[in-house]
């Protein structure tokens, strides 16, 4: 009975989240008027997807990655090339982008997985730069700095999502899928395994966990989600060039999860929304707005070093929400 009641409330909460993402927010954006709010929302959702995916490797598994924008770029180019050259529709370019980014991610990361802390970070920095330079110089394939134009808009099984509103729904659906996947992984015992690597990977190995395998899995899943975000970006922007997938973007994504709370899923969402929406909301103050954003980041880290929504409280919240009987009387732990 208790289990049933909690399952209902879990379903209700997910429905509530869906209502917010697919009902309330687009209604509000429409009320503000024009295409611009939707444009900003699409960007925010793409970065929510990126932040959530980076949070899996960096926040939860503790691997500081400084090249995440590179995998975003691999996904975007895979989708752009498949749709412009082969005529593939979005339902095919989306999984292609995810797989391409995951494959590149796992291949280049394989030799680096044994590196620790700062060495791993520098290796990923190099990987990100390599991807950027490859996109820039492999002109016959990527058209180099000219970028790829006229990427067809999103259409799913006859459903036309070509305008900004349609793009919003597509971006929201992909972000929701990314959030759900990372939620499944991090709020289960699999998440405990990843967190134990971050805390002390030798000790985790002594408990029977295979650190290298777990790190590669987490990295692959993270890159796949970033690649999916790339597909959304390519199809909604209709033009991409290597400039969108640089070190600056990697750092921006990292700042989002640090401000939100490393290892915290809701934190990653909030951090991404804030760091995209804030500069737009501050357009009125012109050039000062990036200073204001910098001050915001500085103060937020100073006063909330564990992030706006820290990991420990976020996990406790999810556990209660899932209604899992993890306290004494029903000895079921949590999902």
């Amino acid at each position, binding site marked *: 009975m208790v289990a049933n009641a909690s399952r209902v409330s879990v379903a209700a909460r997910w429905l509530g989240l869906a209502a917010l993402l697919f009902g309330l927010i687009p209604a509000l954006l429409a009320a503000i008027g024009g295409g611009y709010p939707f444009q900003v929302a699409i960007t925010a959702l793409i970065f929510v997807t990126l932040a959530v995916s980076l949070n899996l490797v960096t926040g939860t598994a503790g691997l500081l990655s400084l090249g995440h924008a590179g995998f975003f770029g691999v996904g975007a180019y895979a989708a752009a090339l498949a749709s412009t050259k082969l005529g593939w529709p979005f339902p095919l370019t989306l999984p292609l982008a995810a797989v391409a980014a995951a494959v590149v991610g796992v291949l280049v990361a394989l030799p680096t997985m044994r590196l620790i802390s700062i060495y791993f970070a520098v290796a990923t920095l190099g990987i990100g730069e390599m991807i950027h330079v490859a996109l820039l110089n492999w002109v016959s394939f990527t058209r180099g700095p000219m970028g790829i134009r006229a990427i067809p808009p999103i259409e799913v099984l006859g459903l036309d999502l070509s305008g900004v509103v349609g793009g919003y729904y597509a971006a929201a659906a992909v972000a929701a899928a990314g959030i759900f*996947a990372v939620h499944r992984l991090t709020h289960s*015992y*699999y*998440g405990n395994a990843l967190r134990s690597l971050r805390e002390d990977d030798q000790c985790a*190995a002594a408990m029977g*966990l295979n650190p290298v395998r777990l790190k590669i*899995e987490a990295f692959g899943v993270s890159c796949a989600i970033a690649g999916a975000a790339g597909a959304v970006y390519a199809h909604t922007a209709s033009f991409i060039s290597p400039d969108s997938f640089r070190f600056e973007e990697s750092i921006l994504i990292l700042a989002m999860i640090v401000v939100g709370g490393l290892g915290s899923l809701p934190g990653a969402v909030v951090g991404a929304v804030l760091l995209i929406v804030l500069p737009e909301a501050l357009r009125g103050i012109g050039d000062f707005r990036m200073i204001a954003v910098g001050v915001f980041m500085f103060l937020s880290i100073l006063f909330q070093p564990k992030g706006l929504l820290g990991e420990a409280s976020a996990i406790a919240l999810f556990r209660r929400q899932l209604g899992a009987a993890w306290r004494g009387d029903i*000895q079921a732990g949590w999902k």
Partner: protein
Amino acid sequence: MTAETLLEVTALSRAFGGLRAVDDVSAQIRKGELVGLIGPNGAGKTTLFNLISGFTPPSSGTVVFRGRTINGLKPHQVSRLGMARTFQNLRIFPNMTVFDNVSVGAVGALGYGLRHGFFGGRARAEEISARTWAALERVGLAGVAGELAANLSYGKRKYLEIARALATDPVLLILDEPAAGLNDTETAELARFIKGLHAEGGTILLVEHDMGLVMSICERVMVLASGAKIADAAPAAVQADPAVLEAYLGIADDEEVA
């Protein structure tokens, strides 16, 4: 009549540069034994431990556990064969709850992969959870399961580390200086606890720097000095052994000078 041999090391050696930290050690542990391993600081106890559990590859010699030669296996592979360990310098996962710390032992032993994470793995999760609670109950930490491990007192962290090892449901439990940093009352309590585990049928290798604890609870004591095994007998016999006395007295003199 003797119980089956669980662990057998033969002519095991490990050198660090010119230093022979473990020097030609052979030893056996049979099922159900509570064996002590003592020796002065720097005798090579932790190194021997690391050789057995796969953390350090041996320079030469073999380690056979449950009939399988395990040298060359990685620590997680050795762990999955049923050997669990704690660390000399208390290693817990500070930013995880007590429950989650211990669950890692159960996850490592039972397995909970990507597949389980994505698709639910409910049955496996319940198994992990039951084991975690059992281990927490066993060490008396069930009441603080939701606390962050970093907030526990030093003494409780020691039990947390043991609970995490117990959650793997080990065939052999090896404890590296569990009494280090504990006061006399806490050490006596720990001694009772370890004896209890043994009475339940556990096979335990207890590594200690201090003779007292080991002599009071172990059935058999091995002594390591400068990497070599110098004694392996019942506590009373070991205490009367001139070689052991010399090894310890030699160190005691040094410590007085220092």
